[in-house]
């Protein structure tokens, strides 16, 4: 696949002096699609936040393209080509859909191409282009999701991390999003996807990591996970 693009080495982090991630080491090659699966509340979201820099590490290190990024503030991490589409979407409520999307092109690297990217996102999510002047606070849950993902795509980052792409989306939209993820992979981007529903990732992800209680308890291919009844039952309840 290639040399290691993102390396997590024995990282521990959490909130209010309680560790949620208790020693995780993962190696992600360039161009790979990696899935993080496992029960809720066991660290998948925190792991993404640690990588993007929203959560400080208590110990361990994170290296991107060989450079240690774990001490950097989130805006500096993002400037190195990391897009994080968080679970709550975190849209800017008093900005319009268009302004939100343009905020995704805030950094110089993305700004140059912003008109083209905007068109790309509008084609992806026609519903957003219908509501382009509407304030983000007036969008429905699923529309906010689309906006959050679209905005992240505007950054044109090499590493893309999506926390539960299908949450709150209608089935047709979910297929749509996964088509996008496949297209991004074909472009050579590296993706980390957190998913509740393992089956969506099986033929897409190069590797899955199963997180339980802040540890990686299993790593491997999607088909292997689905066929392992014990694993499926224990962690994902079938």
């Amino acid at each position: 696949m290639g040399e290691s693009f993102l390396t997590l080495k024995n990282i521990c982090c959490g909130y209010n002096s309680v560790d949620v991630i208790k020693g995780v080491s993962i190696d992600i090659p360039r161009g790979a699609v990696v899935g993080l699966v496992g029960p809720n509340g066991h660290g998948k979201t925190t792991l993404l936040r640690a990588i993007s820099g929203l959560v400080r590490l208590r110990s361990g290190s994170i290296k991107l393209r060989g450079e240690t990024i774990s001490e950097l503030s989130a805006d500096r991490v993002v400037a190195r080509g990391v897009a994080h589409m968080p679970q709550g979407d975190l849209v800017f409520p008093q900005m319009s859909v268009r302004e939100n999307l343009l905020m995704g092109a805030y950094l110089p690297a993305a700004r140059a191409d912003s008109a083209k990217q905007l068109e790309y996102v509008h084609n992806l999510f026609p519903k957003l282009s219908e509501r382009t002047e509407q304030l983000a606070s007036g969008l429905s849950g699923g529309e906010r999701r689309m906006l959050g993902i679209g905005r992240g795509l505007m950054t044109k980052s090499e590493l893309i991390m999506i926390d539960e792409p299908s949450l709150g989306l209608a089935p047709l939209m979910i297929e749509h999003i996964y088509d996008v993820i496949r297209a991004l992979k074909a472009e050579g981007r590296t993706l980390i996807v957190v998913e509740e529903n393992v089956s969506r990732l099986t033929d897409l992800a190069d590797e899955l990591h199963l997180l339980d209680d802040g540890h990686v308890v299993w790593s491997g291919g999607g088909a292997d996970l689905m066929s392992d009844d014990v694993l499926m039952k224990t962690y994902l309840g079938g």
Partner: protein
Amino acid sequence: METVILVLVSGLTLSGMYALSAIGLSLTWGALGMLNMAHGAFLAVGSYVCFTIITQLGAPMWLAIPMAVIISGLVGLLVYLLIVRQMFRHPAFETNIIIATIGLAILSENTILNFFGAYPFRQPLVIEGGFRLSGIFIPYQNIAILASSVVLVGLVGILLGKTRTGRAIRATSMNKDAALLMGVPVGQVYAQVMAVSGCLAAVSGIMLSTITTLSPTMGDAPMVKAFIIVAVAGLGNVYGAFFIAIGFGLLEAIFQFTFGVRLAFPLLLLLVIASLIWRPNGFFGSATILRN
């Protein structure tokens, strides 16, 4: 008719000064979630620095005012770097910073008192003369204040609405984590906001000192009014603060004219209480202002 002109002139003058001061406070509250109790101190510092530059250094008005404003901006920046930034990570930040800035305000007031004494100096910035409109004498001073306010508020509006820095400030105010994820250097935004807030407070203070006099406690009452305006507008809503400031200034002038100077402020406060009961989140505020 004459009454209307009188009230309009004095009201709009007040509105202009209040608008600048309130906008600065609202920016700080919106972006940092910080109730800056040293806001009045910035007002006073700006005025006294301007006074010193003119009287001690003999500088002309057009040099002294920008210098005083820049110095106040730097003071704002220093407050951020030395105090706010250290306290920011603590979960009780919003309470702690109130106490810290109160302390800062007391320190500032006493320093001014020590250096200048309590003598009510006059700000040597008065523009003499005026013109007559429908028989009413309108001082150029008031027109100058009004014009400057309009220009400055316009500049802030352009800054916030049309520039990249402005978008960064607005984004940070709405959702700090999301702003970080867009690559917005939030720490720098905070510093910029505090500097701008210091500058706006200084201008407001200088304007005020030309109408009244300098005094170490000159920032107290204007700060209270700025807080009232920001709260009635809805915490964090800068555009709202502007409109409420206009209304507040006009209403104060009307009340002063109708009920006399002594009763005007208390009656105005009653109106404020009533409006906060009617709209607890402010006229333009949203139901919750969440930081991240």
